[in-house]
């Protein structure tokens, strides 16, 4: 029999509603599993008291009837979300001991729906990284291993703790955030599903800002149906975020009909990279065949500015980050450096930020500062924003031509070993986002679905990209792909 912590959200919801299980039982099963999974370093702040309190409240609500789908479901929350009274430090030393007096809109909506918060999840510092190696908490570890090799692998990043926790069944689902691929790449590395909705679908209020025009929250779950259910609870208009879309949120789960006959799937030729591993090529071709078998029409398409997405991203994102992270000055919250005799306010800022920010964050803040500085603003920042407009136009053109969804690989490789990229230059790490970053630049919804294993037994995922605001349709395509691929592998427990 499936252990309670291994249930999908949909299965748990149905059992809760039938009275076959209580939220208290589900919550205890997850809390026990988390206690035994220290080696994964996924949960970095545990909140068992809050969890038990919310589980009891959820059970009462379920008994009274009319409980929403997420009621009683134990979930993990990425450390980037501010949660009232609970450490929320974006995996950075500069926010050590910060306990927000407020709750992010997304985590509040989940709480309102009755979801049970188990704790906060590891991530890259300020969501800047693709391997969870920039975290002040140390690396999160992927529950998957290469065959019998016990080398520790990255769960990806930046939502590495979320991915590891869901893949290892420590919780039924988790929140992630995605600025350049931070939901989809870790989902692909750990054999789970992760969706980044259209920019504006989820409120950014109360989520520690990295690059405001790119950041979006989304769910990371065990399958596509769960992604639909959890996304539903996270979405919706929020007057506290001026870029939040004032649009009705459709019933995403109802969109999962499994019928994509007559839909047009675009295969972008520019995503066929030089030196792409054969296994990724095959995965992509297999996925294409699956959608074709399901009755979709396969169309070769061109997104000509794809090549320039990464360099544009690495101008725009650090520029916005340098501006957003200016708030960490040692005055209002977080770390303040000990000052020497005679130090003034400038020394306080400089020492505080040198001590509080890790290396990658410092580098990106300085890059951002440089590209926004007088004399370089036009050459770098404005040029990048123009290229971004062209990347967005590429997508608009193919959608105007009738394409319903675009199929690409999610990542250029399977999960790599922790520490393997330490000596590589930063650009090599940035290449992890090569297939995902275009979607953030264009503000589109994208989903990663596990569809196969590589020859070492590691999960590989494909990405589907949808039309703006058509998450329901996108989830339905992903659902078809998931059913055709029949990915059921789980990591063997070693932790």
């Amino acid at each position: 029999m499936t252990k309670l912590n291994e249930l999908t959200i949909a299965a748990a919801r149905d059992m809760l509603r039938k009275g076959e299980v209580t939220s208290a039982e589900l919550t205890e099963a997850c809390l026990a599993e988390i206690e035994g999974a220290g080696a994964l370093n996924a949960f970095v702040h545990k909140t068992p008291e809050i969890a038990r309190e919310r589980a009891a409240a959820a059970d009462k609500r379920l008994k009274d009837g009319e409980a929403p789908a997420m009621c009683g479901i134990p979930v993990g929350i990425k450390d980037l979300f501010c949660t009232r009274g609970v450490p929320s430090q974006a995996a950075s030393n500069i926010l050590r001991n910060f306990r927000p007096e407020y709750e992010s809109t997304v985590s509040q909506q989940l709480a309102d729906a009755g979801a049970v918060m188990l704790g906060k999840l590891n991530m890259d510092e300020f969501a800047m990284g693709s391997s969870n190696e920039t975290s002040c908490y140390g690396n999160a570890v992927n529950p998957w291993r290469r065959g019998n090799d016990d080398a520790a692998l990255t769960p990806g990043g930046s939502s590495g703790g979320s991915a590891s926790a869901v893949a290892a069944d420590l919780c039924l689902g988790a929140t992630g955030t995605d600025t350049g691929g931070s939901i989809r790449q870790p989902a692909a590395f750990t054999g789970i599903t992760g969706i980044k909705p259209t920019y504006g679908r989820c409120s950014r209020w109360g989520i520690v800002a990295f690059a405001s025009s790119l950041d979006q929250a989304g769910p990371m779950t065990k399958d596509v149906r769960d992604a639909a259910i959890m996304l539903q609870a996270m979405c919706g208009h929020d007057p506290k975020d001026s870029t939040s879309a004032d649009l009705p949120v459709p019933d995403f789960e109802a969109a999962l009909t499994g019928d994509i006959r007559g839909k047009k799937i675009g295969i972008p030729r520019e995503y066929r990279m030089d030196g792409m591993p054969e296994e990724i090529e095959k995965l992509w071709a297999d996925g294409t065949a699956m959608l074709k078998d399901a009755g979709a029409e396969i169309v070769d398409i061109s997104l000509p500015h794809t090549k320039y997405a990464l360099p544009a991203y690495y101008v725009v994102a650090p520029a916005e980050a340098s501006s957003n992270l200016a708030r960490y000055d040692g005055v209002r919250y977080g770390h303040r450096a000990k000052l020497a005799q005679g130090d003034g306010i400038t020394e306080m800022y400089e020492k505080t930020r040198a001590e509080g920010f890790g290396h990658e964050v410092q580098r990106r803040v300085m890059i951002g500062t440089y590209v926004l500085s007088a004399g370089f603003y036009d050459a770098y920042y404005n040029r990048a924003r123009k290229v971004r407009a062209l990347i967005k136009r590429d997508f608009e053109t193919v959608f105007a031509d009738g394409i319903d969804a675009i199929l690409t690989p999610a990542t250029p490789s399977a999960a790599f070993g922790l520490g393997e990229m330490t000596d590589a230059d930063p650009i090599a790490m940035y290449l992890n986002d090569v297939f995902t970053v275009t979607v953030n630049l264009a503000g589109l919804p994208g989903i990663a679905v596990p569809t196969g294993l590589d020859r070492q037994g590691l999960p590989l995922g494909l990405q589907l990209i949808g039309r703006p605001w058509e998450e329901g349709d996108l989830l339905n395509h992903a659902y078809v792909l998931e059913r055709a691929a029949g990915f059921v592998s789980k990591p063997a427990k070693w932790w």
Partner: protein
Amino acid sequence: MSIDISTARKVAHLARIAVKEEDLPALAGELSAVLAFMEQLNEVDVDGVEPMTSVTPMRLKRREDVVTDGNIQKQILSNAPDAREGFFAVPKVVE
């Protein structure tokens, strides 16, 4: 475009991040490598292209100009590294 040590020093100061003098050459090298990567953008013809300002074509919402929050001094100061007499305290900024 490569970044020399004096530019690296200037950027670090603009970003208000203290960088030790002996770490500046490595920093200059790292920043130069990232900038070299960005140089690819110069290959793109961007004539007549408007810089992208908003991700989705929507008007920014406006709200009524009314007070919606306030009287929460204690909460606002609760995370301050140094709060005194109801204020954030910092080193002396005026002589």
